[in-house]
Structure formats: C-alpha cells, structure tokens
C-alpha cells in the first residue's frame, strides 16, 4: 500500500530528524526555487510602471507651474495677443498657435489623401509579391529622422517652391477674389506652405500604415460580395471599405495630426521664424515648436522663459486632446496607437 508507505516514511523521517532540521530543509528548498525573490520582483516591476505615471504627471505639473508667471501677467491675452516682443517683455502666443494649427491643417489636407491613396493601392490593387516590400519602403519614410526632412526641405523643396511652384501659384490664384490673398507676397520659398508640405510627407506613413491595418479588418465576404455584383475597385473602396473603416481612418488621420502638431526640427528649418500673423500661406511664420527650438536657449529674463514654457504647455495640452480622440477612435477598431 503506497499510502501506508508514505506515512510510515514520513514518520520515520520526522522521528529521525529533529523538527528544526526539517524546517531548515524546507526553507532551503524554497530559497533555491526563489520564492523569496517574488515580492522583490513584483515591487521592481510595479515601481518601473509607476515611474511612467510619475513622469507623465510631473511633465504636466512642472510645465503648468513654470508657465504660471506668464499666464498671471498676460491672462487670456497671452493666447489671443499677437505681439511677441522680448525687448518690451510683451508676449502673445497667437502667431505661434495659429502657425501650428495652419501648418498641421495643410499637412492633413495634402497628407491624408496621399496616405489613403497609398493604403488603398496596397490593399486593393498591389500585386501580392510587391506588397510587403512597398509597405516596408513606405514605412521607412517614418524612420527618417526629422532633421533630415528639414535639410531636404531647405535645400531641395525651398528652391523648388521659390523658383517654380510659388510664382506659378501667385500667377494663377493671386488675382482671384476672396482666396487670392492666401497666395500673395514674394515667393521666398520658405514659409507656412512649405512647412505644411514637408509635414504632409512626414505624417503620410503613419496615416497609411494605420489605415492599412484598418482596411484589413473588412470582412472578406463583404468585399467579395461587392466584387461579385460587379462593383469596380473604386466602388468597393468608396462604398464598402471606407464606410466600414470610417473610425479607423479618422483615427489614423488624427494620429497624423498629432504628429504634425508636435513636429519640431523639419518645421524649424523652413518656416522662417517670424512672429507675425499673415493672410498669405507663402509668408514666413512660426509654430510653437519652432519658436521653442529657435528661442529657448537664448531666452534671458524670467518672463521670456516663462512665456516659452507656457507655449510648451499649450502644445502639450493640444496634442493631449488630439491623442485622446485618436485613442478612442482606434480603440473602437481594436487597434493600438502605432509606435
């Protein structure tokens, strides 16, 4: 009988060994398999996770604290004021905020259709063998450092804009009523439009790759039913894929918007850094991030520095809101924010 054998063995053992020895052996076995380390490991991983929360909260608190002097002095006119004058210590953020929003808007206006075109091509038309390699190539656009986009913009796109594109646009669109004033002024090459165009290329890979993931969620049956009834590729895209993935596509575009709002180096190269509001999109302007990159290290005087930090806080809040919208939209198609 095995049961009897076990109990008799145990009793024999416990009678042979003193109780202390048994306990010591048990402890040794437990230590060897590492039960003791368990709370340490659990604590370490919790602490690491908590660090992320602490970092995020302290960014918010510190930026708010440091920008208090500027908000206290200028109040709401910090946001609505349009003069930025370090000499007289007067700071209004409107040109920077407007520049940020307008360049990002241009980026989306040009970048989103391009990205959707790329994604629809890859999802519906691309030969299977080329698909992976083209997808990887398009995603490489996201890996190129932003400073490289800046240099490319300054040395390739700016001359092109100044010599060919802007004079042509001024000639065609300048005389038009109402919209004409958007296309006025000398063709510098640098300015709001150029910055927006570079941004549109930079946001393209993000929008394309998230949209492509969304398109993959369209049920095959739905797609094939449409093709089966004789729908053309364009009709399938327009009537089936885009309506089905609407949230995902809007989420992808919002993601691109978030990237465009915060982009710094590429914009700094080509925007011209002028704190002025101008109707023309050819005029030099500035964005929040470009102002920070250009001026922060040279900002002497506490009010100047506090105003720049307040600009940073405004940018953080704007991207925060855009991110929450993106997250909600992508969550509804079970997609996470891409890296």
């Amino acid at each position: 009988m095995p049961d009897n054998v076990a109990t008799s063995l145990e009793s024999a053992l416990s009678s042979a060994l003193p109780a202390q020895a048994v306990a010591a052996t048990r402890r040794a076995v437990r230590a060897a398999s590492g039960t003791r380390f368990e709370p340490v490991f659990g604590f370490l991983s919790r602490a690491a996770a908590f660090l992320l929360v602490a970092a995020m909260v302290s960014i918010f608190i510190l930026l708010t604290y440091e920008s208090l002097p500027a908000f206290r002095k200028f109040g709401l006119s910090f946001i609505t004021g349009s003069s930025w004058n370090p000499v007289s210590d007067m700071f209004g953020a409107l040109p920077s905020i407007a520049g940020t929003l307008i360049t990002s808007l241009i980026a989306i206006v040009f970048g989103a259709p391009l990205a959707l075109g790329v994604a629809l091509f890859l999802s519906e038309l691309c030969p299977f063998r080329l698909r992976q390699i083209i997808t990887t190539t398009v995603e490489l656009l996201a890996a190129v450092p932003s400073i490289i986009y800046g240099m490319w913009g300054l040395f390739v796109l700016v001359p092109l804009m100044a010599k060919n594109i802007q004079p042509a646009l001024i000639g065609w669109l300048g005389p038009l009523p109402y919209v004409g004033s958007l296309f006025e002024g000398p063709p510098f090459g640098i300015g709001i439009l150029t910055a927006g165009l570079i941004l549109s290329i930079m946001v393209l890979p993000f929008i394309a790759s998230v949209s492509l993931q969304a398109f993959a969620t369209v049920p095959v049956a739905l797609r094939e039913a449409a093709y089966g009834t004789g729908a053309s590729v364009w009709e399938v895209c327009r009537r089936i894929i885009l309506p089905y993935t609407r949230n995902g596509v809007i989420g992808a575009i919002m993601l691109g918007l978030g990237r465009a709002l915060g982009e710094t180096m590429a914009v700094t190269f080509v925007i011209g850094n002028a704190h002025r509001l101008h109707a023309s999109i050819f005029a030099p302007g500035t964005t929040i991030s470009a102002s920070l990159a250009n001026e922060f290290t040279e900002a002497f005087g506490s009010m100047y520095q506090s105003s720049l930090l307040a600009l940073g806080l405004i940018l953080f809040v704007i991207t925060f809101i855009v991110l929450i919208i993106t997250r909600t939209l992508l969550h509804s198609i079970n997609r996470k924010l891409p890296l």
Partner: protein
Amino acid sequence: MKPDPGILLQRRIKNRLMTGLFLLALLVSLGVLASILWKLTLDGIGYFTPAVFLKSTPAPGTAGGLFNAIVGSIMLVACAILFAVPIGVLAGTYLAEYGRHSRLGQVVRFCNDILLSAPSIIIGLFIYTIMVMPSGHFSGWAGSLSLCIIALPVIVRTTEDMLRLVPDTLREAAIAVGCPYWRMIVSIGWKAALPGILTGILLALARVSGETAPLLFTSLNNQFSSFSMNGPIASLPVVIFQFAMSPYRDWQHLAWAGAFLITVTVLSLSILSRHLFSAGKGT
C-alpha cells in the same frame, strides 16, 4: 434588362481615374523618399572622408570633422538606452503579467501612450525644468535622460505586446510545477518574447539616434572635444542642425556628411529590427 452603356462607360472611366490617382499617390511618396536618399548620397558621400571620424568640429573656414559629435552622440544614446531598457522591460512586464486587467495597469498604459506621442521638444522642456534649471548648467546627463524618456514608451509597448503573445498555457504549466511567478516570467515569458523585446530596443535606439529637439536645451552643444557628461556635450543631430543652418560652406558640407551617416545608421537599425521581428514571429 441590359445596363445602359453610357453608365457603364462612366463607371469604368471613374474607376480608371481613381485607381490611377492611388498609383500616383504611391509614386509621389516613393519619389520623395528616393529624392531624400538621392540628395543625401549625392551631397553626403563626397565629404565623407576619414577626417569626418578623426577630427573635431572646426571653426568656420578651417578643416575638421565630426569626431566629438559622433562620440558625444554615442555616449548620450548609450546611456539613455542603458537606463531605458531595465525600466522599460520591467514596466512592460508589469503591464503584461501583474497588471493586465487592473485599474493601475490601465492608467500606466494611458500614460505610456501619452509619452509615446508627446512632442519630443516637450520632453526637452521638462528635463530643462527638472535638471538644467536647478543645476544652472546644461549637461550630457540631462540630454541622456530626455532621450531615455523618449525611448522608454517604445520599449514598454513592445515588451507588453510581445509578452501578451506568449500563450497562457505555458504560464500555467510553469506555475503548476511549482515555479514561483517571477521565475515563470523570466524563464518562460522573457525567454519566449526575447526577439520581440530586442526589436523594441532596436526601434527605440533608432528613434533616439536621430532625435534633435530635446537635446537643444539639455545637452546643448560643445565645439570642443569635451566628453564629460556633466557639461554641455556635442551630439551629431545638434551639430548637423547648427552647421546646416549656417552660411559657411565647410560647415554645410560637414552637415551633409553627418546627415548621411545618421540616416544610414537609423535606416539600417530600423530595417534590422523589422528583420529580427519577422524572424522572431516565425519561430
């Protein structure tokens, strides 16, 4: 009933037009990438001499290289990754193992998403207020810490995602034979997810190697060969920024050589990480 040939023709033309536009969009985006790489190769490779690696950044009008900037960049990035990897992997482990469904886990995940997409210049501002302002001077450590905060969320996210791919039956089997929880994580979870975690680390490395904005007011720049992390230190992206915007020809040439170097590094890292990931998924 026969379909109206006019409508058919109209639909066919519309289809041709729109699919043509899709192809055009693709060609435009690939064309821009080609143009960037072409310009970099054309202008970068000519000035890509041994001096770039051997000499320090020059005064305008004299010969020099990017030696101090390259070493500075390597130091900043290496320290950032060294700090980010343990913290990131542990936090990712928390999200995938301990806090998978907990409230704290959701909060951490949310903060990680915010950090992931926060503009990098904001991270620079943050480090400026906590390190540069109190100490009164720019430093390599400050630059490194800001790169670390940018690398962290990437590592956290990939670690969590890769650990989630490990089947729960493996976990249960380990627990069932009496393995402590942490041991199970280390010898089963981390081991199975290793290629994925390495991918995340490489991605983070690629991301921070080209990062410029947060360094502008943390590690600043240094035209001398100073390799002290306690003082301002030169880094490749910041030097490229300064030199490319300058009116001096020699500086612009060095900027192109640096831009070529950094793009080749970052793109190879990014392709390598992709390759590693697809190899890891295969097993």
